[in-house]
């Protein structure tokens, strides 16, 4: 910030003196056009009457000035320091009258780093020479340029030694006094002189970057050894009466007047006026100011705010209070920004429209990524995770999940699709595309200057209308009709990788859901459906088992491979001698003891097996393992067993077989055994892959889907697709109303919303219409992905829907020759569609409502 302002100041010397101005008038570099515009600008800067330009004149100035006069007697040389940016204005005439008229005098132009020396040095010196001032030295105390200081020292010594002494007394030392108006750098000059000549690093007098640091005539400071020379630091003194407000403005601009005593807005206004008058249009570029020069400070401040995000509520013109705040911020570029929050400089902050625009951009980037995955002809995305795992999918939620989005707002979109996934399980791509489209429309409206919340309100209204429309066009669906359910599942699977054997998978999905569904409470517990996969075979080989498949085999290879009418003991205790949980130690001191222990162990095994046998069990499923000896004994007693069956599987087994999980052998009773019609080992392919399937269970509520496929990725993708399909079926069980897919429902909603828009009062109307446009993005994307001409397809679709009043018409993605989705049997659940639209609207509202973002700067907001 500082750097910018310095640059700005450097380029434009704020001096009102026409002499200098005329001499330099052959300067600037801006285009003719700018000058032409600027020629119409005001010729004179008039301060409003209300502005009191009697400037800052604190008490200490008058008092200390008297004191300085008193000290004059012992002073041999007066050094007047002035600000090089205003070489002519603002010099205190009293200095001449009362101080240096009778003393030798040097004029030091400090802060020369802030002006263009080559351009101004000559004219200024020329001006002063004509006014009888010879000794002008240019310095820069901030950088402590050696040559400048040496120059000053040399001049001082020359003058001191050449001019006659005014002090009659035989004094060997010389004394100089530094005078000037506030904040021109008197104290800095002394400190740097001392540093340059005596090599003292630390400051002898206090200095600061604001006016009014030195308020007393200081004790003298030694600055030269040969001849011994001292200087007196004095407070800056202004004249109480300035000629005009313009002078006061100039001083204020260079921060020579206490900032809080001036009206910042006028100062800023003056700066603008001056820049325009001198034809310096560099501010346009500096403040990234679009359009030509401007003469209205309010407009300029507004623009600056917009481009530099200084303030958020700058959209509203004509409020005076806000303006002062902006004026303040502009001005702070020249003063010091003060730190209010921790690590303010390390935070990235975006406000107002910019924040909104950047969010919209982020969201659109995300939604554009997903856009091509929409619909049955949508393409897949391949993603490689950091540890090299490859995922191929066109499921929106999965893509978003794996993309590892960094941007904070794009993360919202990820969550959006996740929540659609969690709630509905389908339509995750659609919801993101819709949200992106809505924001795109919103951006257009923002550009027209509509308040973001009004847009959001309009969207909300439109959303309600769309939802109502959906309810109206929804058809009831016969959930009992298995065939129809399969068709629905096919729609969902249509865009997925499994569409080669779509019918097969659709059947699997429907059967699975129907067997676990509780029709009376409309609840489907997915935990009862186990989806498992194994590499090898074709997708078509996937099977649906009404029962359980576990990836385990009999513990002993010679145990029977198939058991009919099995009675199953489900154990969660190991086949081994029981152990107490308390830490224990068994001391064996003799061979007898050892034999006894062996005996005990064997007996325990036998009792256990006997206990199991006694209940009539013909199969043991054990959550834990047992060692080979136990295995042998089991085989010996012809008790087939399976070990290391996982916890969830045990549970599913118990539910399926109506058995009870038994934690101890002692508790085993015949009633607690589970029953299964067939338990058999299934062998896959030539590889020795074996699994155990337990079928024909008394309770059909636990089922397994077993997927085969060429490689792991296909299986995983097939699992995801099935999950989506099952979600669709579940939603139908929950709520049996449907709408038609292929963009039909969206188009129908868009038509209704667009029609309703004209009846809305207020600005919301625009948002309403925009909502309709956004809805049309879905069929548009569908058409695009299917290789149709999107606009043509959409417009003919709209026309047809209107003409036939048939909300079932959609985009014919699969080129079946008809666009009646009812005949194509492309249907979606009402629940899913409603959820999509309302979720997208919700998230858009949230994003539109943000106008201020603070992010730690190291996060690059990667998209």
């Amino acid at each position: 910030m500082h750097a910018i302002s310095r640059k700005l100041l450097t380029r434009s010397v704020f001096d009102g003196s026409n002499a200098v101005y005329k001499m330099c008038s052959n300067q600037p570099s801006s285009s003719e056009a700018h000058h032409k515009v600027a020629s119409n600008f005001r010729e004179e800067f008039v301060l409003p009457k209300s502005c009191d330009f009697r400037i800052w004149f604190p008490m200490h100035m008058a008092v200390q000035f008297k004191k300085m006069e008193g000290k004059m007697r012992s002073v041999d040389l007066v050094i007047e320091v002035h600000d090089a940016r205003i070489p002519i204005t603002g010099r205190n005439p009293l200095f001449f009258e009362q101080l240096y008229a009778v003393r030798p005098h040097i004029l030091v132009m400090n802060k020369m780093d802030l002006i263009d020396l080559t351009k101004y040095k000559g004219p200024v010196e020329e001006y002063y020479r004509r006014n009888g001032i010879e000794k002008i030295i240019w310095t820069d105390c901030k950088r402590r340029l050696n040559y400048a200081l040496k120059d000053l020292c040399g001049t001082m010594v020359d003058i001191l030694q050449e001019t006659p002494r005014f002090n009659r007394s035989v004094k060997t030392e010389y004394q100089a006094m530094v005078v000037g108006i506030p904040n021109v750098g008197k104290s800095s000059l002394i400190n740097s002189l001392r540093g340059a000549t005596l090599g003292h690093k630390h400051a002898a007098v206090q200095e600061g970057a604001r006016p009014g640091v030195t308020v007393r005539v200081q004790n003298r400071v030694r600055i030269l050894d040969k001849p011994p020379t001292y200087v007196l630091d004095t407070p800056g003194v202004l004249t109480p009466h300035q000629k005009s407000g313009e002078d006061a403005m100039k001083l204020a601009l260079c921060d020579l007047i206490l900032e809080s005593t001036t009206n910042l807005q006028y100062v800023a206004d003056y700066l603008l006026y001056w820049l325009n008058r001198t034809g310096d249009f560099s501010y346009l570029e500096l403040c990234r100011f679009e359009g030509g020069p401007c003469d209205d400070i309010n407009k300029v401040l507004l623009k600056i705010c917009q481009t530099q995000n200084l303030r958020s509520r700058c959209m509203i013109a004509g409020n005076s209070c806000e303006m002062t705040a902006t004026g303040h911020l502009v001005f702070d570029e020249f003063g010091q920004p003060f730190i209010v929050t921790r690590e303010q400089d390390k935070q990235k902050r975006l406000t107002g429209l910019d924040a909104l625009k950047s969010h919209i951009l982020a969201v659109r980037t995300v939604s554009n990524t997903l856009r091509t995955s929409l619909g049955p002809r949508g393409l897949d995305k391949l993603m490689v995770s950091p540890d090299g795992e490859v995922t191929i999918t066109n499921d929106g939620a999965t893509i978003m999940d794996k993309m590892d989005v960094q941007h904070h707002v794009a993360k919202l979109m990820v969550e959006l699709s996740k929540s659609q996934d969690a709630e509905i399980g389908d339509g995750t791509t659609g919801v993101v595309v819709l949200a992106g489209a809505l924001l795109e429309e919103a951006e257009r409206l923002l550009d027209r200057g509509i308040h973001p919340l009004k847009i959001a309100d309009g969207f909300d209204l439109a959303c309600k209308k769309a939802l109502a429309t959906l309810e109206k066009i929804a058809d009831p669906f016969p959930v009992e009709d298995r065939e129809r359910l399969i068709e629905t599942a096919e729609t969902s699977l249509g865009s997925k990788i499994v569409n080669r054997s779509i019918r097969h998978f659709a059947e699997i999905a429907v059967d699975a859901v129907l067997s676990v569904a509780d029709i009376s409470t409309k609840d489907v517990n997915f935990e009862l459906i186990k989806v498992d996969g194994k590499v090898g075979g074709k997708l078509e080989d996937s099977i649906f088992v009404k029962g359980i498949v576990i990836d385990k085999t009999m513990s002993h290879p010679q145990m029977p491979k198939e058991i009919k009418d099995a009675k199953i003991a489900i154990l969660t205790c190991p086949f081994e001698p029981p152990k107490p949980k308390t830490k224990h130690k068994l001391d064996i001191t003799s061979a007898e003891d050892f034999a006894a222990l062996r005996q005990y162990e064997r007996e325990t095994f036998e009792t256990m097996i006997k206990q199991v046998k006694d209940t009539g069990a013909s199969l043991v499923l054990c959550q834990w393992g047992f060692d080979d000896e136990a295995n042998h004994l089991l085989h010996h007693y012809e008790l087939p067993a399976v070990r290391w069956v996982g916890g969830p599987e045990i549970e599913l087994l118990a539910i399926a077989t109506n058995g009870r999980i038994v934690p101890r052998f002692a508790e085993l009773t015949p009633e607690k055994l589970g029953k299964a019609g067939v338990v058999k080992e299934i062998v896959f392919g030539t590889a020795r892959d074996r699994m155990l399937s337990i079928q024909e269970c008394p309770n059909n509520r636990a089922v397994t889907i077993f997927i085969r496929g060429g490689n792991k990725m296909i299986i995983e993708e097939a699992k995801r697709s099935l999950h989506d399909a099952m979600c669709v079926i579940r939603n139908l069980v929950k709520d049996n109303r449907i709408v038609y897919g292929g963009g039909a429902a969206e188009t129908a909603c868009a038509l209704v919303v667009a029609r309703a828009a004209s009846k809305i009062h207020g600005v919301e109307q625009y948002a309403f219409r925009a909502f309709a446009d956004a809805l049309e993005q879905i069929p548009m994307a569908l058409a695009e992905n299917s290789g149709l001409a999107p606009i043509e397809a959409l417009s003919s679709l709209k026309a047809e829907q209107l003409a036939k009043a048939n909300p079932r018409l959609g985009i014919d993605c699969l080129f079946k020759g008809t666009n009646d989705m009812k005949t194509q049997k492309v249907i979606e659940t009402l629940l899913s569609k409603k959820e999509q639209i309302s979720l997208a609207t919700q998230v858009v509202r949230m994003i539109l409502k943000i106008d201020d973002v603070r992010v730690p700067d190291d996060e690059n907001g990667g998209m």
Partner: protein
Amino acid sequence: MMAPPIILLKDGTENKQGKNQIISNINACCVVADAIRTTLGPRGLDKLIVNSKGETTISNDGATILKLLDIVYPAASVMVDIAKSQDCEVGDGTTSVVVLAAEMMKRAKPFVEDGVHPQLLIRAFSKACEAAISKLNELAVKIDGPEALREMLVKCAATTLSSKLVSQERDFFSEMVVDAVNILAEDLPLKMIGIKKVSGGSMMESCLVRGVAFQKAFSYAGFEMQPKHYKDPLVALLNIELELKAEKDNAEMRIKDVKDYQAVVDAEWNILYEKLQKIHDSGAKIVLSKLPIGDVATQWFADRDMFCAGRIPQDDLERLMAACGGTVLTTVSQIDASVLGKCETFYEKQVGSERYNFFEGCSKAQACTLLLRGGADQFIAETERSLHDAIMIVRRAKKNDSIVAGGGAIEMELSTYLRNKAKEITGKEQFFWMAYARSFEIIPQQLCYNAGLDAIDMLNKLRHRHAKDGKWAGINIHEEKVMDNYEACVWEPSLVKKNAIIAATEAVCLVLSIDQTVKNPRAPSGGTMPGLPQQM
């Protein structure tokens, strides 16, 4: 010669004093207020703040934003404190208190610059504050009768919610909040309203559970076999681990004989079984424990058609206790029906992707749970904050049943009143009163800015109406015009305003009375000091 400097403070200590100090403090406070100014009112916008850990918060709540801003400027933290105190005391109006305080300071600034002694200002402001409060009390409308009271509460909640993310559904949520608060016991303990967040679904699917609901705890094998639906069950609340485990951590046993081995094992099992049996005998159908319930116990309960859940969070358990009665037991030796809780129905249901346990129709019915749904986590988090504000408001309003009209109406009325009163004052205090009176106008003004309305025009209309005795005239943002906000049912509890005015005035007085700051240098790693010139 130069006098040796007297070094009083450590090198690098920042020491600022005098008038400049007051002014720069005021400036800092104004900057803080500017940060949240735009969140005020129904058209206020949200702020998105990402902290250094990368967690995102989107909020409209003044206190939340200020907390996250991490303000280091010493005087500016006063603003954070008043926002916090407003949050704790009333729960809402955190933005308005900060904006009001900043405006008062801004009005005081020219006086300080002109050399008025801060104490004079402080005295005048305090007096004016007293006058404002007494006028406020006079203006406040008392609500009588249960029907009217409920209606009032709903309206207050709706006014609060109108500035939040959920404003479109404010009617829905305000009913919900009022119902929730009405369930609570006499002293309205906030803890008894549980708020559960489930992402997914639309906001309208949020619901109020008259009882307790919590997410299904981690479960062991056998859980699915337990029944998930009970009518009129008894509920045992425990703080016992029901697991097969070592009874004492550091115990060690030496077993001489192999036969003893079985005995020890049996003993351990029996300890657990005894516990389980006792619970069963007490008639409890549902067993909940703060500590884990192991697989053996889960299966044992499943065997007896009982439901159990372990690792229930403390606050859920407390709410259950409040709702169902009963006590949390740390031993089962005394368990009987008298210490068990009761509820009408218990069931497990899928909510979004989670399964939730619901306890409804509880016997004591003094706790409830709000189940919030929404698109994204941040969305629900903000909804929760909004509802928290609304709950606080309703709680407050219920205890203190007088209201005033919102939308800047009460501020304008107070401003008018103070201005008239100021004219009766002789001496320069009159100016200070005037300034104080004017600062109230910032609230309607800011409301207008945020809504994109012409503030000056609106303000003039408001002044006119108030001068003509339209004491409840305020800005109706939704209609975008000046109207009677009492009629329009934009109501706020008078307590909110009272607290805001007092807090803001106190903050102003505090800032005005600071004339020196001494700040010790930070450790070398720290950033630059506030106020020091930045090195180029």
